[in-house]
């Protein structure tokens, strides 16, 4: 047995009196009177989400009749890009003609040399403009949406919840898969509290709302 472990646990029991009884009931009795459910209708929720994304400086493209490919083409033209990395399982229908798309798999250095990455997401939280990536299938391993300088993310309206507790509730279902939450592009305010977009993560984030 690890003696440091035993000693620390012993010190803790000495300090707390080693109370073990009623722990579950005590935890269940913790007051949680904060807002959990949303209050907005669907349109209001999406409007709030878009407003938060605007606040972070992300460009939002609205897909008409779920035509994701048209938005991808529009975003790539606006950014002057000819190619993107895509996760293995990303739907082929999302990829417009006239651009190059590389399926994931290359080394970190090849990812680093790419023009950007296109992924989907698992959940989005309107009140904080947060996009949640569950790193499997359409969101790929973590390196893919991290190393490139540009991240284009597809969010479906049905994936958007209003509050943080609602988002966490959804995330519980896939907690054993690595999760990244994203709220706007990489940023720092370490120099004189001046916000600079883009340090190590993607410096630009665009969102397609489908």
């Amino acid at each position, binding site marked *: 047995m690890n003696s*440091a472990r035993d000693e*620390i*646990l012993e*010190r*803790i*029991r000495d*300090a*707390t009196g*080693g*109370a073990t009884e009623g*722990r579950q009931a*005590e*935890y269940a009795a*913790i*007051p*949680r*009177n*904060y*807002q*959990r459910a949303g209050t907005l209708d669907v349109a209001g929720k999406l409007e709030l989400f878009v407003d938060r994304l605007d606040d*972070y400086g992300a460009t939002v493209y609205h897909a008409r009749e779920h035509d994701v490919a048209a938005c991808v083409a529009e975003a790539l033209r606006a950014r002057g890009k000819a190619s993107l990395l895509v996760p293995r399982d990303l739907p082929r229908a999302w990829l417009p003609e006239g651009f190059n798309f590389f399926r994931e798999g290359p080394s*970190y250095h090849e990812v680093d040399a790419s023009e950007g990455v296109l992924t989907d997401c698992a959940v989005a939280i309107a009140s*904080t*403009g*947060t996009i949640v990536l569950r*790193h499997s299938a359409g969101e790929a*391993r*973590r*390196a893919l949406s*991290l*190393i490139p300088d540009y991240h284009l993310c597809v969010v479906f309206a049905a994936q958007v919840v209003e509050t*943080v*507790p609602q*988002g*966490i509730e959804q*995330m*519980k279902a896939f*907690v*054993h*898969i*690595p*999760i*990244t*939450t*994203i*709220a*706007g592009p*990489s*940023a*720092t*305010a*370490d*120099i*004189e*509290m*001046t916000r*600079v977009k883009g*340090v*190590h*993560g993607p410096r630009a984030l665009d969102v397609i709302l489908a």
Partner: protein
Amino acid sequence: MSTYVGDAANAPKFQTAAKALVNDTQVRHNVRHATSVIRQKRAKVVGEMADWEQLRESGHEIKQHVMRHLDFYLDQFEKTCTAAGGQVHWARDADEANSIIVGLVKAQQAKEVIKVKTMTSDEIRLNAALEAAGITPYETDLADLIVQLGEDKPSHIVVPALHRNRMEIRRIFLDKMNLPELSDTPEDLAAAARVYLREKFLRVPVAISGANFAIAETGSVCVVESEGNGRMCVSLPRVLISLIGIEKVIPTFQDLEVYLQTLPRSATGERMNPYNSIWTGITPDDGPQEFHVVLLDNGRTKVLADREARETLDCIRCGACLNACPVYRQTGGHAYGSVYGGPIGAILTPQLQSMAHSQTLPYASSLCGACYEVCPVKINIPEILVHLRNTVVERGDAPFVEKMAMKAAAYVLESPEHLARARKFGRMAQSPFAKNGVISHLPGGLDAWTAVRDLPAIPEESFREWWLKREREAG
């Protein structure tokens, strides 16, 4: 084996260090500017939350519950993390944690490590331990990088280089990154850091992180950040080592719904910080294939044992109390002589060292209560400061003049006769110093009081004397 908090045991008294620092107008300007900006941003995004007080209350209650059952939750975390492929180590103190981590890095035959901002690693002086073992640590948080390259010390727990301005940072980067030229715009400085660190992110095989939350129920670890350096460190290298203070454990994944609302708004004034990474053990084909957690005590169980100060351990390191503190805003973080400055540092640092060092820190406060008001987990810092001052006095470590003054006050206030005699004596004694009913300069050790404030003189006639006279005259 020993417990220490950075170099705090050798730091000068707060009052001594503060005196020098308040004369550094550049540092004061930088600190004031930065803290003012964060305070405004925080006030705005906290103001829009109708349920802020309820979130604070829950955040507080969850932490208090964890502290009462810390043994259970640590044991549960160890089990769940291990089941997910992680390896859990326990460290009684700073030396033990350093030797575990150095051993793990050496086992990889690695000569370099990349680090995500972890104040806990500064607490245990991990970088010095790594360097002594021939391992080069690279700080990857921009502010930490500025501190490391500038051979400086952190002055804030969230924004460690806030005492530096852009011109100073430009000079440090030019020098240490061997750049031919560089402007002093924050954009260019951040871009220089991006280039400098990118090659290290892609190459260095071992990363060291801290953690904001360790989740007992699932064995998951959560790192909260803005720049993406955290994501790089926890997802690119082959091996990840997370150094986690034992107080960072929370019961369930759901508890994140409280802290992921209060932490970013309190720390940087954002509704949500740009990135949170949450991972559970090891995932085949994604990220590190070897994951170690080092659970650190280093004095925390001593804090836990003191019921009146236990909630010090509730801290989620948002730094809001530093930004709000009128003392911190004047002196900056270096005056505290610890990696943990400001109000939370003033209570945490001496306690971690069993109150044997940093005894002047509980006095580094006017007890105005601004820290308590902004604390997202409702730590009653002013009350703990007073409690710790009491501990200092009980240990006999109070300053001589204060001890004498308190003894004298106890005698004088013991009976009306003592008070009357003291008043008479005081009136005579004060005559060389009192002017227009005010004493602005006292002699000897008492001048510490009058250096910054006036003392009202004892009046010619007290209320009691007036009353007695009135009774006599009425007769």
